């Protein structure tokens, strides 16, 4: 019964929100209010999650688990950020500059690393997945669009050819739209299954 009550509450709230979404702008104030509730609830959930994270990493340090040095670094950075944030205030320019000085270089380095890793993985594509229509078309289209979008190939003197290149350049967008329609259908179906309680049913 307890499970059914929560399911009924979820279904009714879901249907109400779906209805409210369709009948905007009449329902806009209600939607804004519910969105605020969502933000408050999500923030509380995040706090609970962070508390769990801190407790877990404290446990790793106390048990001297392999890799507990990472946990120590995490906890030191976490508490340092909280303490400085409370003392200086989250809008303090020095505090923000300090955070940026750490975060920006790290994120930039991470992105550079990811770019290199992705490039090396793309080179290994045929070894990993073999020669198939999918891999060949993936490689050919990736190379073609990278080359076209670099902007070196221009046909200013030939408008017909320029139009043709523009059509080719639009192909990824067409493909992405097709893919997105499929993904949106899947998401819609999943949402409706949740709304009708089918997703909760165990087999």
């Amino acid at each position, binding site marked *: 019964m307890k499970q059914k009550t929560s399911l009924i509450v979820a279904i009714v709230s879901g249907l109400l929100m*779906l209805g409210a979404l*369709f*009948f*905007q702008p009449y329902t806009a104030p209600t939607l804004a209010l519910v969105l605020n509730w*969502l*933000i408050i*609830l*999500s*923030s*509380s*959930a*995040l*706090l*609970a*999650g*962070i508390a*769990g*994270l801190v407790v*877990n990493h404290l*446990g790793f340090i106390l048990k001297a688990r*392999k*890799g507990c040095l*990472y946990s120590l670094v995490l906890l030191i950075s976490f508490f340092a950020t909280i303490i400085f944030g409370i003392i200086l205030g989250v809008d303090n320019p020095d505090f923000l500059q300090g955070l940026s000085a750490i975060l920006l270089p790290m*994120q930039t380095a*991470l*992105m550079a*690393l*990811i770019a290199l*890793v*992705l490039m090396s*993985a*793309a080179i*290994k*594509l045929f070894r*990993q*997945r073999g020669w198939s229509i999918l891999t060949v078309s*993936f490689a050919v289209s990736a190379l073609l669009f990278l080359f076209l979008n670099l902007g070196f190939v221009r046909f200013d003197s030939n408008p017909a050819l320029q139009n043709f290149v523009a059509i080719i350049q639009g192909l990824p967008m067409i493909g*992405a739209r097709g*893919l*997105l*329609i*499929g*993904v949106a*259908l*899947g*998401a*819609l*179906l*999943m949402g*409706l*299954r*949740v709304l*009708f309680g*089918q*997703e909760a*049913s*165990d*087999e």
Partner: protein
Amino acid sequence: MTTTNIVAMGIVALTIVVMAIVWLANRKGNPESLENIPAYDAVDALIHRSSEEGRELMLGLGDGLSGLNGSLGDSISLTIQRIVLSRSVFNDRATKSFSGDGALANISQLVIKGAYENALAPELFYPQDNQLSGPGSLAWMAGLLPQISHSENASLILSGALLPEQFLLADIAEQNDIPFVIASGSPLAQAAFFVSSAPLTLGEDYYLPSFGKLNQKNYQNSAKTMNWLRIILAIGLIVAAILKFSGVLP
């Protein structure tokens, strides 16, 4: 009411009607069943592997549920977690889950607790088997990276809202010879992870989780509904294009 809202309402109504028809058709008799998505069947193999090797199965649940992290909120990763746990509660080593969103971490905790309670083994549930590895996508990835190379880890399932940047996780798993499966609904992530060696879901396959004989009823209903919707939408788009080119539509 705007035209967009009317079209959206029409699509939702159409989906509900098709869902109902498929559900009714599947209730009677023994309808022809569709094959599982290969990536999800690979998950089944990973569950067996971790069980046989007596090592951990890792679940990366992504960072999207509340939709506040800039990625489309979805609950498929939780469905995957529920199905995986229904098979792996009695493994020698508990399945570990890592989330990148506070709400996701909390609900995932409930899913794990529910799985152990359903298996009548609530004493085997430990809250630390489910962790928030970082708030946000990059923090989630940073928290997950050292866990992947852990020696007790047998296999990895990355599901949910993923970013192309998280390809680093796949690279680390490959370097450590850890078999893994990618299940994401993000087309960008699908394109990035395609260059890895792992089985992955392409397009809307992600929304059809079914491992072996698990979740078959839900899968069959969803897959058939989606097939019919695709056909109807394709016909609708073609008709709209013809009407547009013939000047009937402005």
